[in-house]
């Protein structure tokens, strides 16, 4: 279980994180061996081409988004992904989240190779171990902040009362205790991103991926959100993709990407 600042006993309605992962691993028997216990994410010679079998853009033109990318992120580490648009930052986040299966190579999440799992199992692993923070928040405008935060728990069949309780606890944690009933449209950009961070944390994930988390925010609000992200990132693996130097400055290490390849890995 990730050692986040939230008391795990508050989230005990459903087995989460590593425990759930073990279930998947034992069910598939495909856990890789020799993986460091603290390695949360490992990419081995990952190549991804859009327009090929792994892509979905169609057409004859093949665009190589990633080429032989290898990198690892340890639990408790914040890794920044830097590089210009189209360099492959988002594609790495998507492969780590299991939202995309690369054309070649392996993507291990806590020792399990996501590329060998079915779509259903990847979705399950993502729900239990990954928290995603989007640049544009992607909150459901029809739901209150509390209901948005509680959404990932719906799939696990967590009862309504427990969902509400968890969501309120997390909203309090991100400083929005007085905004739980507000719709996203009634919140500022910074507040919406805080709701999105609370939603990413609701399943107590081991890995947080954030794609330009401050891209839509002004400098001061962005700094607050980064503080929050680094705070909750302790004892989790955090991957942050950004163009912004201020955002990348919170990272323990920055991996620079260019044309789908790692140009520098700031170890």
């Amino acid at each position, binding site marked *: 279980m990730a050692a986040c600042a939230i008391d795990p006993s508050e989230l005990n309605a459903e087995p989460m994180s590593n425990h759930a992962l073990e279930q998947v691993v034992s069910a598939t028997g495909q856990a890789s061996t020799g993986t460091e216990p603290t390695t949360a994410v490992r990419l081995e010679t990952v190549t991804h081409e859009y327009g090929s079998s792994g892509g979905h853009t169609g057409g004859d033109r093949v665009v190589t988004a990633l080429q032989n990318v290898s990198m690892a992120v340890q639990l408790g580490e914040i890794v920044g992904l830097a590089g210009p648009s189209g360099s492959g930052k988002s594609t790495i986040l998507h492969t780590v*989240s299991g*939202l995309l299966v690369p054309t070649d190579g392996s993507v291990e999440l806590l020792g399990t190779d996501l590329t060998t799992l079915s779509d259903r199992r990847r979705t399950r692993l993502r729900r239990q171990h990954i928290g995603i923070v989007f640049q544009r928040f*992607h909150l459901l405008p*029809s*739901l209150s902040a509390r209901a948005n935060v509680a959404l*990932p728990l719906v*799939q696990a*069949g967590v009862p309504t009362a427990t969902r509400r309780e968890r969501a309120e606890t997390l909203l309090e944690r991100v400083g929005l205790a007085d905004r739980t009933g507000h719709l996203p449209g009634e919140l500022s950009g910074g507040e919406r991103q805080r709701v999105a961070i609370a939603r*990413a944390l609701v399943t107590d994930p081991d890995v947080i991926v954030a794609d330009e988390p401050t891209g839509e925010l002004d400098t001061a609000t962005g700094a607050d959100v980064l503080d929050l992200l680094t705070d909750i990132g302790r004892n989790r693996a955090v991957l942050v993709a950004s163009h912004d130097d201020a955002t990348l400055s919170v990272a323990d290490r920055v991996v620079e990407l260019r044309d789908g390849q790692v140009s520098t890995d700031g170890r």
Partner: protein
Amino acid sequence: MSLRRAAIRTKAVVGLAFAQLRRSPGRTALTVLAVTLAVLSVTLLAGLGVGVVQTGEDGLENANRDIWISSDPIDPSASGTENPIVGSHGVSADITEREDISSASPIAMHDVYLGTDEDDLVRTSAVGVHETHDGFDFEAGSGFETEINASDGEHLEHQRASEPTSEEIVLDPNTAERLDVSVGETVYLGTSRETARDHEFTVVGIAAYYSQYLGSDAEAVPLTDLQAVAGTTRTDRATFITASVDDGSDPAVVRDDLSAAYPTYDVRTSDEQVSAMFEERPLVLASGATLVGLAFVGGIVLTINLFALVAYQQRDELAALRAIGLSRWVLAGTIGVQGFVIGLLGGLAGLAATPLLARGLNLLVSSVVGFDSLLQTPLEVYGIGLALALVVGTVVALATGWRAGRYARLEHLEG
């Protein structure tokens, strides 16, 4: 435990679906309206298809005759000037003498000219019959009854006058309105403009009885009067001879006997007559079938398109839900529940509007082409309409939701 989780998930899916519907009340209302239109297209088009076929059948069923004797071609609307059966009163009398026949009578049809002013006549159809009956459903006045009864053998030529004797007519309501005449007034009638001025008939009643299965305005006139006007008294021409069989007799057996006795005529039971008429009118059948087919296909295509759009409009939300770990089933369920709710509301609205619109369209059709109740909406038509809205709506919404879940990828989250 898993059942409980499924129940919790289902409840959440329903809540999500309602939240999405509430989010854009205007869009939801428009979607419901679109389903209403799809249902209406099904109920009204199918109702029209049913009505087209039914109108022909009803005409014969209302006539309440078991046996129809005719001479091809069978096309009452076109053979009005033909009247191929010669000596029809004699044939009717001979047939009536049979033990298995309770009554038989000839029917003649002619195109005639009619009007209150001998210089301003309208062309219409006249049906010559011996008497009117309760089935005429008179809007005003009553019918006529001629003295000569073919069933009693009073059919010899000398018993029938070569000039009209009753001079009574039952007008179709449209004709009466067009001529601006009412019961008690007189009209000129003839088979040509020139002869019309020679014969004046008194309007005794107004009814659309024959119009309903001829498909055009038709007036009822005593048969012998019509023959006299048409100059066919001597040849005694008729279009049909209709007969009722005695209780206990099998119409099919009677048909076979009559067929053997009158080999030059076509003898049919009433069911066969319906089929024969439709064989002569493939266009009617084709139109009816096409309308029903169009109703189905059109309704389904409209519904599929609609819910594909509903899912498409929510692709960003679906992509986000998918990214945070909700399964495709939950996404499909969310869209599916929306489909069910929209289908239910749109379906009920469509069914509620169907009878009103059907009545309006029937009035329009009746005033333009003379068919009454051409658009018929039996319970089955309502059932089909609701099934389309609910079943197709829900299934298509589920399918498009499921599909949207697959394609709800990251490009929707990046932009």
